[in-house]
């Protein structure tokens, strides 16, 4: 594989790694694993660079890789999480190891509320509302139809509102 690929991946890392790391973190709420999956995203992009058609934006392509890795991880974690929930009391605090990441107090309630949504709702909110991808780009990343993106987002916002109410988040009403 030519050095050009390595250089391109390195450039992409400088441009998009932070955004990808935060996306994965908001999806899985595990700092260490978010770093590992960010690592895997760029390595997978390196290995599959020959398949990247420059019709799409590199950012969209990288996010679709990150999405696939994250969803695979969530799927594998599901049975483990159920066992954890049975045998241990669920932690409600959000640990934030200072050496990896910091989350400002003002956004912690929102971060927690997001974590309680089902993954498809969480994902579509992150991509559309936080990462500001267009409907089309979101549908490419998630490999969904545009209709499904719109429908899911339409259902996800009230679900987030409900979770925020439970958290005691101060707001008036959603539009």
């Amino acid at each position, binding site marked *: 594989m030519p050095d050009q690929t390595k250089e391109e991946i390195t450039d992409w890392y400088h441009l998009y790694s932070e955004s990808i790391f935060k996306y994965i973190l908001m999806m899985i709420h595990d700092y260490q694993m978010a770093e590992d999956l960010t690592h895997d995203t760029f*390595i997978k992009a390196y*290995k599959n660079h020959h398949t990247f058609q420059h019709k799409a934006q590199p950012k969209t392509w990288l996010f679709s890789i990150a999405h696939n890795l994250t969803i695979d991880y969530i799927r594998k974690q599901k049975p483990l999480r159920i066992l954890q929930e049975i045998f241990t009391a669920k932690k409600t605090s959000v640990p934030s190891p200072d050496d990896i990441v*910091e*989350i400002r107090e003002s*956004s912690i309630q*929102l*971060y927690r509320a997001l974590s309680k949504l089902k993954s498809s709702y969480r994902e579509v909110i992150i991509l559309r509302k936080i990462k500001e991808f267009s409907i089309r780009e979101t549908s490419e990343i998630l*490999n969904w139809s545009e209709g499904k993106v719109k429908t899911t987002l339409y259902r996800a916002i009230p679900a987030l509102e409900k979770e925020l109410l439970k958290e005691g988040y101060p*707001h008036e009403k959603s539009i």
Partner: protein
Amino acid sequence: MRNQYNDSSYFDSQLKQLDKDIIWKESRKNKLEKSILFSMNSSRKKMRLVAVLKFASSIGILAIVLFFGYTFYTDSITYHDEASITRSEDSQIVDNHNPEVKVTSDDSVETDEAALEIHTGSVEAVTRKNEGMDQEVEVINYLIQPYKIAYQLDKVFGAPEVYENEIQYSIDDEYTITLAIIEDTNLDQSISNLQERFEAEGYDEEFELESVSSEENGFAGKMQYFSQNRVDKGFIAYEVGDDVLEITFRYPVEGGDGMYSILNFLRESIHLR
């Protein structure tokens, strides 16, 4: 008037703020970059090594194949002749006026007494719409016995294979259609089992469960699409008397357009003979 899609919400600004409020330490980011560079270098070395090994092993395999090919050349011809004779004896002509080939699950499983049989009938040329264009295709008439369920499927899927209560069609194992008869069950139970199975295989619901219009073929049915890593999978289930006819299918997402018309045609062709 065109509808403008607007998905703005009260939380938009707070959600954007959340992104800014998550701060990933620069030292960690730099450390991860180094780790990625290291992994890219090792992966490069690994890829070279794998290429060399692949080349060496393919030469080795070629030598082995040539050796065995030469040694057993005569034996293989003899075996092939015997196999042809056995197969022709096993083939049964069901109806002399309308010759049909009968494949039963007894070919592979001998224990099932009321084995499902698939009778392959005549080939028909039909014209149907695909992506808005008229397309002429050849379809084969099939009959599932003893259930008397008849249907038509594109010839391109080739000869079916029968395993117990399933009739399987496949093109290169990428495009598959399977018809199964589940006895003494109802539609809800059958659908619940299919959904569980697909989810266990790691597929996500692409669309919610929907009813299939009985105007298509006279049967009450339901269908649902799932997907995973650019592969679409789904099922259509029909209540046929006390049994359920389950049609499951799988194809790469790129082949969706062709498969929609094949599956629609299959659905419409189902009838009791």
